């Protein structure tokens, strides 16, 4: 886990621990690439992604990784209960 930076974006990946957090700064190419790969991998595994460009904005579904999002929440595939 890297220290939070002022321009940092965050991906919250749901799991049994509550969630894992992945931070990236859009101006850091390497970090952004790691976030993109993680995003693509999770989408392949059936996760849905929801992002918001600001803290207050209601999140909407994302089909593609958008590094400018302030926060992305990765939700495992939905199953009927």
């Amino acid at each position, binding site marked *: 886990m890297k220290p939070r930076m002022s321009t940092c974006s965050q991906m*919250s990946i*749901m*799991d*049994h*621990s*509550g*969630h894992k957090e992945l931070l990236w700064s859009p101006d850091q190419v390497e970090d952004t690439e790691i976030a993109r790969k993680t995003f693509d991998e999770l989408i392949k595994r*059936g996760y*849905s992604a*929801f992002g918001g460009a600001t*803290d*207050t904005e*209601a*999140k*909407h*579904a994302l089909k593609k990784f958008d590094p400018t999002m302030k*926060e992305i*929440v990765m*939700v*495992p*595939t*939905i*199953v*009927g*209960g």
Partner: protein
Amino acid sequence: MHALQSWLARLAEVVDKMLTPYRAIQHQLEQEAREHERRSQLAWQQRVREERRAKRRALTLLLRQLDRRQRDMFRAHGYFYVTGGGSGVTYRIRCAKIGNIDVLTPDGNVAHHLCAHPAGDLPVYDFLVGQMLQLQDATTERSFLRKANIIPLDLKILLTSM
């Protein structure tokens, strides 16, 4: 009489000698059982701690996703309302893992319940986050509704007793 007592004493000595190695084994077994019990206790405590930590983390994530009104409502009542992104229907999401989504009619009554949630062993608050995000987006609301099981109102008693 004296001879009998003396014979019994000797017999007790012999038996005691014979049992000595078994006593050591018994002692060892007792120690192992105690150690096993101690480890089980530690593992259980660790599991409880991890579950609590996971719940706290999931609650933080949930509270971050809710707007002020939803947050206040959730803190006061343990539920919050979400408007369907595509349908405009109002859903009430309660803090539970089974059948916890109430589909409301325009006059505010419960039409039926829905049961669908993110897969996996997740804390309950993650369930609520997943349900809210899916329902408030127009595209995912449709797919969520397709997967959700509909629970009629008359099954509520059964669910609340689970």
